[in-house]
């Protein structure tokens, strides 16, 4: 046996040594470096891109207004391809190679859970725009989020089913591929059953499936009063269409994953009359929202989603904390973020609680005449 393989091992080790020693942290400078990791390509690019556009808009606005602490902000964006294993490298690169002072991202909880521990270990604050799994911020005291969590939304939806819809029997159709869907289904179920509701049927699908008639046929035959679908709009739109085809006429409802103009475009008349809860509606009559929608539409030539408002808010909360802390030093910055109180964001006014989760209201909307119509607000 030649020594070739072993010498290769040695060579690759040497390469690692060399790389390790040349890597340097670039601090200071005349810009403040902020990192963002997002699913810009791959399976879930459609959500990742929406969030990223919001974040970018925020940073551009801040820079146009003269920056923060007398410096411009440099947003360094890393794509994680919607792929497990990638966020770790992306976040490591942002922190160790680029030397960012804070990290924004991810929308998917599973990827925030991969990036989170690295931020925590390096004591770099991370703000997730849209990861609703409670475990995300449990990673450590440097991890925050600007959205509500699954338990809160699940409970609100359960109350909605029991109260507003007065549904005695609800069927649940869960996306088993998505931790978001499973989490929401779980918390909904707990609260709904406790509230006296009854489950008609529980079925699953895999996110990205196109055919749901099998599940819907079973659900139809369990004669529920309403159907709960914690899923994302691209699946939900098709589910609504097929439910209508099968002659299901009870209301369908779900969570913030529904909120997108694409739900209306794809679902058309099949989504009429259904309900969902979300962070905010982009036609809400608040000055912040109005100026956001205007700026967003001007910048990207299309209407924003709630996902974009969360991306925007995550960046703005960070900027706000920088201003209050007067520094970008990590511990001070962390404390400032943690102290965020009654912050007026686009997606609503919120504070960060002791679990570093946003405490903010949730709104219910119904789809009427091809539009999202505000129906109620639930305060935490």
């Amino acid at each position, binding site marked *: 046996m030649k020594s070739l393989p072993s010498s290769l091992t040695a060579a690759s080790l040497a390469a690692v040594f060399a790389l390790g020693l040349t890597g340097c942290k670039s601090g200071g400078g005349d810009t403040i470096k902020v990192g963002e990791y997002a699913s810009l390509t791959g399976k879930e690019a459609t959500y990742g891109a929406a969030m990223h556009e919001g974040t970018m808009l925020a940073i551009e606005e801040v820079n146009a207004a003269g920056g923060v602490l007398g410096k411009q902000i440099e947003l360094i964006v890393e794509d994680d391809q919607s792929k497990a294993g990638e966020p770790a490298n992306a976040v490591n690169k942002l922190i160790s190679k680029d030397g960012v002072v804070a990290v924004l991202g991810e929308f998917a909880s599973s990827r925030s859970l991969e990036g989170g521990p690295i931020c925590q270990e390096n004591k770099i604050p991370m703000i997730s725009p849209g990861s609703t799994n409670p475990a995300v911020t449990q990673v450590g005291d440097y991890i925050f989020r600007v959205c509500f969590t699954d338990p809160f939304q699940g409970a609100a939806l359960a109350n909605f089913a029991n109260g507003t819809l007065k549904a005695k029997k609800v069927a649940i159709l869960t996306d088993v591929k998505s931790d978001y869907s499973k989490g929401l289904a779980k918390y909904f179920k707990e609260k709904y059953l406790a509230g006296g509701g009854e489950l008609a*049927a529980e079925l699953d699908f895999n996110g990205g499936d196109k055919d749901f008639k099998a*599940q819907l046929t079973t659900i139809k035959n369990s004669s529920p009063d309403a159907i709960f679908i914690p899923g994302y709009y691209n699946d939900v739109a098709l589910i609504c269409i097929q439910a209508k085809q099968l002659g299901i006429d009870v209301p369908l409802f779900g969570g913030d994953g529904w909120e997108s103009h694409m739900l209306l475009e*794809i679902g058309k008349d099949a989504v009429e009359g259904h309900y969902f809860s979300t962070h905010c509606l982009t036609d809400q009559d608040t000055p912040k929202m109005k100026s956001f929608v205007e700026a967003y539409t001007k910048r990207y030539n299309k209407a924003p989603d709630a996902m974009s408002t969360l991306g925007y808010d995550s960046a703005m909360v960070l900027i706000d904390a920088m201003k209050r802390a007067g520094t970008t030093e990590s511990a001070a910055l962390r404390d400032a973020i943690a102290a965020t109180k009654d912050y007026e964001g686009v997606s609503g006014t919120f504070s960060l609680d002791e679990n570093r989760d946003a405490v903010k209201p949730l709104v219910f909307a119904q789809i009427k005449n091809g539009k999202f119509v505000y129906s109620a607000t639930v305060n935490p």
Partner: protein
Amino acid sequence: MEFLQQFINGLSLGSVYALIALGYTMVYGVLRFINFAHSDILMLGAFAAFYLSPIVEKFCGPQSPVGAILVVILAAAICAIIGTLIEFFAYRPLRGRPKLTVLITAIGVSLFIEFTCQHGKVFGSNPRPFPKLLNDTQFHFGKLAIGSNDVIVLLVTAMLLVGIWFLVQKTRVGTALRAVSYNQQAAALMGVPVNRIISFTFAVGSALAAIAGILYSMKFPAIEPLMGVQPGLRAFIAAVVGGIGNIPGAVLGGLIIGLLETFAGGIPGLSNYRDAIAFGILILILFFKPAGLLGRSTVEKV
């Protein structure tokens, strides 16, 4: 009643799989390789129809059958050209190389199409609403629901099955095609224009993919660059289950996968394993019939 409804659901899903599987099996039958990019041609077919239909609508009016047929024919032609180009640039230089090389290239082509189309300057990653080519009327018989689109899918699959079977078995081109499939070198020596026959196979296979893509999108009207991956994989499995290279086998396999997936999908506690069901069936069948249900096992010559 529930059983009957599920049977209809499964039949309708299965016939789409069957249609996609037909294309896989045709290419495999001739070239003995898995054209991974088939599922992406399907997607391109759907997008072609997406962009063509507003134009055609101007001339034929909304949801007219003539317009729909025109869109399908144009999209099929576009995809046939794309398919032939892919064969010419990516697969032809590999003629005679080990199967693995070709398989990996096919995966490369598939990834290339997907990632390129996902790019913001091409189609982007957002799902788009697929235009209504035909009015999808729902018929309700008591509790039973059948859509006109489902009937159309079933009819088109049956027609294309017969058409392809006729093409392969009864025409001159079909004879040449079978000759190439049996032995490329011998066919070439007999004066069969092998390259042209292979291009033709790709053209027909891609046109089939485009038609399948359009019918699939009529059933599930949200299209995006990765839409082909999942039905493509299922249809490929269907082709193998039926006996890859065997035309009726592809249809049989498609219907089996569609039906079993649907029945399993309707059972609480089993629906979460739906992704694995097609593979489960595949593995089971291959263990008992290593060449698929209708495929003939060949004895290796020693």
